[in-house]
């Protein structure tokens, strides 16, 4: 990717986001008391200022992309870039693991969820040490549980099935 195309893309996104903020998000999701007459003291003032600056930066990015003479790719662009759909599938799988962690934390408890997440991630990353990965998947969450629950006094979620001391 070149700087020109990157700035073009970012400029469009920033400008659209600023418009979204100014015309939808701020009017609908920022609440100001009706008795505030002075806009400078209103809770909406600061978000509007930031939205304005975002629009300005978006336009500056677009201007930079349009006026940029060169369209050369970044020098340090990732070499050995993985080909095909496998990287995307791994990203999707990692996203799914994160989602399952969110559901698993109240249901299974943090320790068991963490064990499963550790093992799943290690195999997703194609570890060359599967035995070590499984051992770590069991030991690391238990050690962290011991520290946070018994030293730091944090109420680690225990889940609905197996409870730890």
């Amino acid at each position: 990717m070149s700087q020109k195309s990157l700035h073009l893309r970012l400029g469009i996104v920033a400008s659209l986001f600023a418009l979204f903020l100014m015309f939808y998000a701020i009017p609908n999701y920022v609440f100001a008391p009706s008795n505030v007459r002075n806009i400078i003291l209103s809770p909406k003032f600061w978000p509007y200022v930031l939205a304005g600056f975002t629009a300005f930066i978006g336009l500056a990015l677009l201007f930079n992309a349009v006026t940029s003479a060169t369209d050369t790719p970044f020098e340090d662009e990732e070499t050995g870039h993985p080909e095909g759909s496998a990287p995307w599938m791994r990203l999707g799988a990692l996203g799914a693991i994160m989602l399952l962690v969110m559901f698993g934390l109240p249901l299974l408890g943090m320790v068991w969820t963490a064990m499963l997440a550790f093992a799943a991630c290690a195999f997703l990353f194609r570890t060359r040490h599967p035995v070590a990965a499984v051992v770590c998947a069991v030991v690391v969450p238990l050690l962290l549980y011991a520290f946070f629950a018994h030293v730091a006094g944090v109420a680690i979620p225990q889940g609905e099935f197996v409870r730890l001391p």
Partner: protein
Amino acid sequence: MSLMDSLAAGFALVGNIEAFLMLFIGLVVGVIAGAIPGLSATMAVALTLPFTFAMTPINAILLLLGVYKGGIFGGSIPAILIKTPGTPASSATILDGHPMAERGEAGRALGMALYASCTADAVSNLALILFAGWLASFALNFGPPEFFALILFSLTIIAGVSGESLLRGALSALAGLLLATIGLDLVYGTNRFTLGNPNMMGGLNFIAVLIGLFAIPEIISMAWNPVAHLGKTRALGKSRCSWADYKNSFKSIIRGSMIGVFLGSIPGIGAAPAAFLSYSEARRTSKNQANFGKGEIEGVAASESGNNGVAGATLIPLLALGVPGDVITAIIIGAFMVHGLQPGPMMFILNVDIIYGLFIGLIVSSVFLLIVGSVAIRGFRFVADVPKRILMPGVLILCIYGVFAVNNNIFDVGVMFVMGWVGYIMMRNRIPAAPFLIAFILGPLLEDNFRQAMLMSGSDPIILFRGPITWFFWFLTCLTVFAITRSTLRKRVPLS
């Protein structure tokens, strides 16, 4: 309270084995994290933060400062051995450190890196002790307009941490400022972008955002390309850094330390420019000018003293003004807040024992760094050989536990994951994460002081220019913006 009273109070606070043990552990963790490519000092400080919740404030801050200082030195180990800087500040060390490693003199280069780091660290700590109190007493006269002008100036830090593009850095900062507006309004208590969710009324948790931005993207990158990290490690070799090497490089070390102190005390400059400036000054004045870039030990000394000279000095604006000098000190500000402390001039009155306790701890940290660093150099192989495809799932689990522990709230874990994907998208689009975090921290302070000033003046903006202190910061802000614009235009890449 007299100086002796303050010192005694500081000693009373840190004069126990636990405080020094925390400092020592912090240095060990920092050096190890810095030595593992892909685990930066920033990430190490962020991941250590949740472990400090149950500690006393002084122990917690000492632990984090240990991680910070250890991480900065640790970054030089992979820079020299595998040409991969553990921290951006170690980039200059590659120039001569790696050629030395290729010649079989890695042990000598690492030894010099350690001695230069410890010397610069001591000089930097001394500067902190001398100047922070003086600056804080000056800052006691500040009201909301002065703080607004100061924080606005501090936002120019963003130019220093924006990397290759100022525009992308500014975009990142605006996203951080916008994210900081989530929660209840500071003055009227009305909802802002909370979407009716009670979890968002107190704003997004700082640690969830921080860990999400700095640790999770590395894990997602690992999913994208699990073999990207594989590299070749060099042997230490038999030669060691001698007293003569140190003596010959001493002038460059002291000069580098001074450069580090000067640049570190200015918010936003950071360690990398200090390392490169120190390196270029050493090359300009050295008798062995021709050897620079080919494995000159004085080059290693200069770059390492430059980047370590920054470490103590970045704490000057942090402690005296409550303004972060760089991204790691921004995280440390968060740690102060988690422990109920507000860095800034008032801390020199309300928590003077903690301030002097930190000073004492920092002086000791230079000696500890020498010990930990010497062992780390010998044990580097074990650190470099940690399988990253097991390490990263471990980091993920650590993040989940750590973020949950802040508020005992699963919602924060979700915020961390979302911010992780945001951070990854930013990384793929070459948008730096550091401006986002700094703006996220400074945003509420900026808005709060602005609105307080407006309330004081009946919405008259003239109050923002009410006296010499505000003029001074406005002048500095204008000067910085002018300098940034000029240097950007000189590069012939308009505003990029």
